[in-house]
């Protein structure tokens, strides 16, 4: 039962263009969402988050959008840089899963120079 889904295993983008990573969830009790970034041979690192009371949160080149009615969130990276090439995980918190992050499977982003 995959409550958080990242349906695109990989994404390839040209440097300078926008990267859009998508995430869908099924549990309506989730009320906080996070994106983590992971480089090879390292652990995931926190990137950006959003509470369910908002529909947008921005931090520099990174913006997360939340559409609660569609149970969908997306991470936009503008402009994309080669150093952004990594695996991006979407994660969710809330409801009976209090204290536990539920992660998606991850999307491999490759930014070409």
């Amino acid at each position, binding site marked *: 039962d995959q409550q958080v889904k990242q349906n695109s295993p990989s994404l390839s983008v040209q440097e300078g263009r926008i990267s859009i990573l998508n995430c869908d969830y099924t549990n309506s009790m989730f009320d906080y969402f996070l994106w983590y970034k992971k480089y090879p041979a*390292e652990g995931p690192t*926190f990137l950006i988050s959003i509470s369910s009371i908002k529909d947008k949160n921005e931090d520099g080149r990174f913006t997360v959008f939340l559409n609660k009615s569609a149970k969908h969130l997306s991470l936009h990276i503008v402009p994309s840089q080669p150093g952004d090439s990594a695996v991006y*995980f979407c*994660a969710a918190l809330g409801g009976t899963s209090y204290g*536990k992050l539920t*992660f998606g*499977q991850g999307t491999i982003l490759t930014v070409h120079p």
Partner: protein
Amino acid sequence: DARVTQTPRHKVTEMGQEVTMRCQPILGHNTVFWYRQTMMQGLELLAYFRNRAPLDDSGMPKDRFSAEMPDATLATLKIQPSEPRDSAVYFCASGSTYEQYFGPGTRLTVT
């Protein structure tokens, strides 16, 4: 520069052997998480502790996995006996629910 440390970084073992993975959380963090990353499932939470007490280990196969925190500076994850399907990267994280800091992981291969 505080960070979560994990040992060993790599472990290759034969099926049936015991495996112990260790984690040193960031000093002052009272919540410790164990995750497993596989290609099929992504990142799965196995267990987590708060103030050294286990809060949830529902993600762990109980018959072969065990997690403990002997003290505030050490968390352990044991697999006995190990099986090839346990091959994965195991991450420890510490912090709070909303802000987790991950270690570099232990890559386990069971042959």
